[in-house]
């Protein structure tokens, strides 16, 4: 099989990046950034999740386009769930 095999160096690099991201998100939470605190926390979490999906879950090296389509569709429908729900709940008190 012509599977892509990632180097140990790459895996350890991703692992260190994920640990650094964890430290960073804790430090960022202890600094007052006003409305940017949750945005920074979610941005760091999304970067970490993206690293896991691309490298540990091998999506970067998959030649199967359907897999990528399935993942994109999942994210799209998840965001619809969140955005339409919040469009309702955040505007209920509007007059």
């Amino acid at each position, binding site marked *: *099989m*012509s*599977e892509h*095999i*990632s180097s*140990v160096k790459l*895996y*350890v690099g*991703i*692992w260190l990046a*994920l*640990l650094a991201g*964890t430290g960073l*998100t*804790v430090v960022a*939470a*202890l*600094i*007052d*950034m006003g409305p940017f*605190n*949750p945005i920074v*926390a*979610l941005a*760091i*979490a999304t970067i*970490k*999740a993206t690293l*896991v*999906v691309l*490298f*540990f*879950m*091998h999506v970067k090296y*998959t*030649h*199967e386009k*359907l*897999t990528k389509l*399935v*993942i994109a*569709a*999942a*994210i799209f*429908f*998840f965001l619809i*769930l*969140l955005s339409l*729900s*919040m469009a309702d*709940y*955040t505007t209920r008190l509007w007059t």
Partner: protein
Amino acid sequence: MPTSPAATVQGEAHENPALLHHFATAEQQKDAASLGMWVFLVTEIMFFGGMFCAYLVYRYWYFGDFAAASSSIDLRLGTLNTAVLICSSLTVAMAVRCAQTGKQKAIVVYLILTIILGMAFLGIKGVEYYQKFAENHIPGQASFHLAGHVPRHPDIPVNQRHAQIYFSLYFAMTGMHALHMIIGVGLFAYLTYKAWKGLYGPNYYTPLENGGLYWHFVDIVWIYLFPLLYLIDRHP
């Protein structure tokens, strides 16, 4: 050559005994299995997504009480557990890599390390749950009480009902995540047994790859749970 039950199907002479007769190539077979696993993970995303959505709505409504409740849970244990889970993801990735490169003994070692890290995560989680019981932070109990006030508002005491909603979500989300971890540990015990039998190698490691996808997914859920549950409005 690793052997598998697939080798006995239909008796057709293939180069790769793991290749089932209805697939053209081993690559196609592996892609189909991987796609199926991803479709399952999509249902998992929507399953956890419902809880994340409920969390978002209540956090928006009762932000001050959520912040007070979030600050009451143990940040050190949460951070430690995040690190433990990230380490376990590395050992899973290494186990799959060892299958790709044909190091069969190393697969078993990395899988056992993964199980140990997974159980360490569950143990630390158990300590946190024990603390919740000891502190009377169990929603629905008559004795529930979260002392203190909304962060930076000493004049606003914590609304006990809203704090219980936070703890309901905390237990529902971390509990469902922990259940996935328990299933994962069981799954990996099975994979370890099969790997020890020498089933996985460069020609066939699909169960290992798909088990890995599951483990990494559970890791990603925690990557979001950690900042959302532990880090609401923590700053002084």
